[in-house]
């Protein structure tokens, strides 16, 4: 049941990404092209997502534990370090070069476009590069 729930959650995420326009690099790059063919649509994606998570998370956290057991695993670090700043700066550069980000590319795999496969493979190469550069204490990379 837990895995069916996870699959269903991924499906809703993918439908949202598809309708929002996030999986279309032409649209993403235009969002950042303030001096050219600017398309502000993606600000509405972030707005819609934040309204739901801002309220929804707080309702969920009234519970003692998640539906399928375990505990709520929320990052607690407040360190503002070079890895956070440099890594985020690099991520933006890559996003501006390719027009895809990881959350948009995963559902975009379902369109069967080879560029998406190339992008995902390149992201995985980037993950391995990061492991070569600095030792890591745990595998999760979440905010």
């Amino acid at each position, binding site marked *: 049941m837990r895995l069916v729930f996870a699959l269903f959650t991924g499906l809703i995420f993918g439908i949202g990404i598809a309708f929002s326009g996030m999986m279309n690099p032409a649209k993403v790059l235009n969002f950042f092209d303030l001096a050219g063919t600017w398309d502000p649509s993606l600000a509405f994606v972030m707005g*819609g997502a934040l309204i739901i998570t801002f309220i929804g*998370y707080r309702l969920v956290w009234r519970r003692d534990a998640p539906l399928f057991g375990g505990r709520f695993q929320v990052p607690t670090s407040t360190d503002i370090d070079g890895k956070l700043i440099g890594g*985020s700066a690099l*991520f933006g550069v*890559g996003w501006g070069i390719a027009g895809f*980000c990881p959350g948009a590319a995963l559902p975009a795999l379902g369109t069967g476009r080879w560029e998406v496969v190339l992008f995902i493979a390149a992201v995985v190469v980037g993950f391995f590069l990061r492991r070569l550069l600095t030792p890591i204490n745990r595998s999760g990379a979440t905010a």
Partner: protein
Amino acid sequence: METDFTPLASFGGGLAIGLSAVLLMLGLGRIMGATGIMSGLVFAENKDEALWRGAMVIGMVLAPGLIYAVTGTMPAVDVPVSPAMVAIGGVVVGLGASLGSGCTSGHGVCGLSRLSIRSLIAVPIFMATAALTVFIIRHVFGG
């Protein structure tokens, strides 16, 4: 390449993205960051950690096909950059997002809604470097 301004579809897609983030917290108690899900799948610590992430990714990948089945139209993926840029951008995204512990979904949606100080720093940085990168590529080099 011009793209249409789609505030309603983008806002609606954003609501669905937010809903999936809330559902993942409710069901499994986890943050929905695509970078964390991908790297957690590549460098899985144990079978269970790989299984729920794998189920989520399968759900995501099924989304475009489901949309095609219902509406008769595949979500647009227009890639206005060269394959080399997709590959280079992908490596930089993978390296940067893993160093910075998050991307648009992890820091942008989940982190901002939690008012995480790390995400409040990371998001303006990657939005700014993405815009700067697009400006340089399109208006300085004229790509």
